């Protein structure tokens, strides 16, 4: 039972991280209808920038409180990533608004490689340590073995709060309405007085800031930063976003959590369940199989709306 | 009128269709007699297009019976319905935009031909022969609906609107339908263009194809149709000869309105 509970906790933490990234994906998708494959790389840049800021602060202001350091690092990383994201949009996506559907995919791939290479030039190829700024104190649990720490709680809370914030932004605010209008029909949004380019640019900037947040959370959780670190989480988060119904904000959260739980429980129990034929090495398969099964029955994901293509 | 026209080519009885909580069709009965042009009219959102979608198998009915040529059929697979002999056009034109005009019609021949990919790779005699016939027939059909053959190699999306409507009809005719179902064929046409559409539809009728047509242009419908069904809120509120329908107070109330000029 301890093990089971622990696996649930593991899954929730992992899932929250996926959710956090997936939220960024989904929001951009929601507005532009394209998958920003470079999102993972923006996340990586965010983590690196935060790390650099932290190192600088450590040198010039020794003894600054951890949380303050982290706040400053976050603000700088989020701002930088917002700008990076905005330029990605301007360079790679804006010229392709009316291009065939797969064209932005190619420039997104180009962007990913570009950002990875830049990171490689600036910060080198070796994985770097990300200092433990979030408290990792274990939270006492009634059950002896089960462990969760403050940092993990912070991660879970961050993603929930982010989701709620985005929900309010998109559904309750004027800017959110402009986002949704743009997503449905940018031309019509234009004649409603929406400056579409601006809305898209802001959305990307918000996406970039979210990526930075996710990057810092990942870096803090695992204590490692690497120019390749965005790729796999990006892929997983994309999976999560699709699982939940891409473009749907609660869907991204749900998809992320579900994916985390599936991976955790999958890795935890698949060996026993299959009598040792399969092991935790099939962890990733598990997630994809669940994804395929879900999509067979719900072709637009768990919470994705059925956009009936009317005849 | 020959005896033929008295046979029901299409008959649907007690058809229901729900979208979530919305009861789009509730207990609709229709008959289309062979050789006639039958009109389906009604206010916006009455369920006319839905009715087409059910008949052609694009949607599945919650309940109801469908008969084609006296035989019961189950419209679940669109291709089966089409093979059985019902072809349609769409309210919002749905051509294969990037394909050429000719190719659009050739796709219509798909169900009546059978060459497979092995034949295509080996370029067998029968495949080539069939391909030649498909092309020949496609050209004939373009001419039939009045699209100049000079336009045959244009992309479909580059055709003028009126020609796109005609092309949709040609594509549907290519499947050799017994029943041609047209969803607002005159939408967006001006009166002059409507007149020439009128002529085309009469020609199709006289060449033996039965037509079921949704249309909001009352003048066109009244002039063309042998029989009319009126749908409102998913139910047939009136049916009869054009004159009868025109006088029906329920129809006037729900659909026609009291302005005289529009009739």
């Amino acid at each position, binding site marked *: 039972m301890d093990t089971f509970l622990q696996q649930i906790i593991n899954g929730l933490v992992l899932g929250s991280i996926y959710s956090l990234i997936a939220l960024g994906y989904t929001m951009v998708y929601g507005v532009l209808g394209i998958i920003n494959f470079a999102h993972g790389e923006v996340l990586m840049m965010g983590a690196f920038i935060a790390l650099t800021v932290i190192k600088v602060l450590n040198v010039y202001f020794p003894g600054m409180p951890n949380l303050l350091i982290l706040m400053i690092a976050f603000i700088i990383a989020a701002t930088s990533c917002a700008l990076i994201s905005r330029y990605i949009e301007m360079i790679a996506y804006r010229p392709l608004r009316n*291009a065939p559907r797969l064209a932005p995919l190619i*420039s997104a791939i180009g962007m990913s490689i*570009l950002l990875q290479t830049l990171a490689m030039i600036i910060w080198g190829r070796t994985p770097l340590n990300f200092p433990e700024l979030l408290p990792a104190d274990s939270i006492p649990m009634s059950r002896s073995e089960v462990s969760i720490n403050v940092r993990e709680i912070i991660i879970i809370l961050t993603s929930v709060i982010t989701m709620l914030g985005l929900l309010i932004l998109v559904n309750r605010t004027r800017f959110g309405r402009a986002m949704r209008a743009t997503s449905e029909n940018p031309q019509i949004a234009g004649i409603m007085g929406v400056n579409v380019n601006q809305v898209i640019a802001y959305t990307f900037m918000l996406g970039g800031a979210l990526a930075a947040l996710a990057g810092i959370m990942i870096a803090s959780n695992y204590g490692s930063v690497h120019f390749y670190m965005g790729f796999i989480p990006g892929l997983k988060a994309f999976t999560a976003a699709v699982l939940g119904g891409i473009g749907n904000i609660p869907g991204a959260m749900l998809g992320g959590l579900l994916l985390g739980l599936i991976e955790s429980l999958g890795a935890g129990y698949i060996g026993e369940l299959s009598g040792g034929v399969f092991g935790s090495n099939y962890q990733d398969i598990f997630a994809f199989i669940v994804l*395929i099964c879900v999509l067979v029955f719900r072709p637009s994901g768990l919470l994705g709306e059925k956009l009936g293509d009317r005849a | 009128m020959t005896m033929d026209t008295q046979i029901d080519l299409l008959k649907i009885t007690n058809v229901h269709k729900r979208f979530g909580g919305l009861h789009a069709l509730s207990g609709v009965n229709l008959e289309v007699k062979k050789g006639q042009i039958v009109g389906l009219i009604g206010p916006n959102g009455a369920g006319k297009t839905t009715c087409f979608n059910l008949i052609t198998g694009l949607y599945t009915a919650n309940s109801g019976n469908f008969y084609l040529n006296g035989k019961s059929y189950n419209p679940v697979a669109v291709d089966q319905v*089409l093979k059985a002999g019902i072809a349609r056009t769409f309210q919002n034109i749905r051509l294969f*935009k990037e*394909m050429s005009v000719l*190719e659009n019609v050739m796709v219509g021949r798909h169900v009546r031909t059978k060459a497979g990919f092995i034949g*295509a790779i080996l370029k067998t005699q029968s495949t080539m022969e069939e391909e030649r016939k498909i092309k020949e027939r496609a050209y004939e059909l373009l001419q039939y609906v009045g699209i100049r053959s000079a336009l045959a190699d244009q992309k479909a999306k580059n055709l003028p609107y009126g020609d796109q409507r005609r092309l949709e009809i040609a594509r549907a005719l290519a499947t050799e339908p017994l029943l041609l179902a047209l969803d607002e064929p005159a939408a967006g046409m001006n009166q002059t263009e409507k007149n020439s559409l009128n002529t085309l539809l009469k020609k199709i009728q006289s060449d033996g194809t039965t037509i079921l047509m949704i249309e909001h242009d009352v003048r066109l419908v009244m002039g063309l149709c042998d029989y009319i069904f009126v749908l409102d809120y998913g139910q047939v509120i009136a049916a009869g000869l054009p004159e009868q329908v025109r006088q029906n107070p329920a129809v006037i109330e729900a659909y026609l309105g009291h302005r005289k000029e529009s009739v």
Partner: protein
Amino acid sequence: MTNQQMRLWMLFATFIAALCMPWLVSFMGGNYWVRVLDFALLYCFLALGLNIVVGFAGLLDLGYIAFYAVGAYTAGLLASPHLTNTFLEIKQAMPSGLHVSYLLILPIAGLIAAFFGALLGAPTLKLRGDYLAIVTLGFGEIIRIFLNNLDRPVNLTNGANGINGIDPVQIGGISFGKTLHLAGISIPSVILNYYLFLFLVLMVILMCTRIQDSRIGRAWVAIREDEIAAKAMGLNTRNLKLLAFAIGASFGGVSGALFASFQGFISPESFSLSESIVILAMVVLGGMGHIPGVILGSFLLAGFPELLRSTMDPLQKMMFGKTLVDAEIIRQLFYASALILVIRFKPSGLWSGSKA
């Protein structure tokens, strides 16, 4: 008529050029460039297969490399000592190992891959666009992970170690794995394979052109353009999509088998997601759905990185006298920028063939 003749002459000239190519290249740049050509041909094979799925039928497939893997492992198992080494029963039956002829392996690889193609197609029929993308991506990963782990409980694929000692293609006593000495000329293995690949790619091009112009090809394009209208025109979209998946996959399978024979060694590393993406980029960048464009795309994307590899360092040395930035970094930067720029200025591909 003269137009037709022109085209024939052009084709003939291209063909002759293709025949002389490896000699020219090997004379000027060495066998390395011939090998690059060999791989370009294999990519061409793959890209043409993917083009059927993505370009003709409009089904976005991010896991196409899985079929390449299936083909490669089919060859790997049927033409190497691996199975006989792990299964004693087979060893007793065939003490010298399994050495099935490639005349058999190629069709088998194609068929098995086609089967997997249909297997992938079946659950994905209802999915559109990005949903299809993620499922196919997942499928590709599933295959790779299985290949990587199917060494236990029984050692079928030899797991991460990969399968070594795969026979080269052997036709009529000529082994494509060794330099052939023929009437005083020695033809290196890379050139032999070039001709083999060229022949098969030409076959594939022929097949693709014929399919494209056929009733089936037309039906695929119709589905791509508007699935609902295609259904309403009586196309059995389910079967047609499955057919596209299967044919596309079979091309992947055959080229996978060729890859295995050419390398002599395969391991799951060769079948990663990034390879799927590279092939997709070839199709899209070249000109989706347009066969000459796809061929161009595959040659460019296979050749361009290698061109950068051999020019970036000498160029720097020439200009600055020393290597300022590591060659591989410049290579990545150029490659990435090229992707972005090309698609920026040619959004429907370099040679999209659309008359618009």
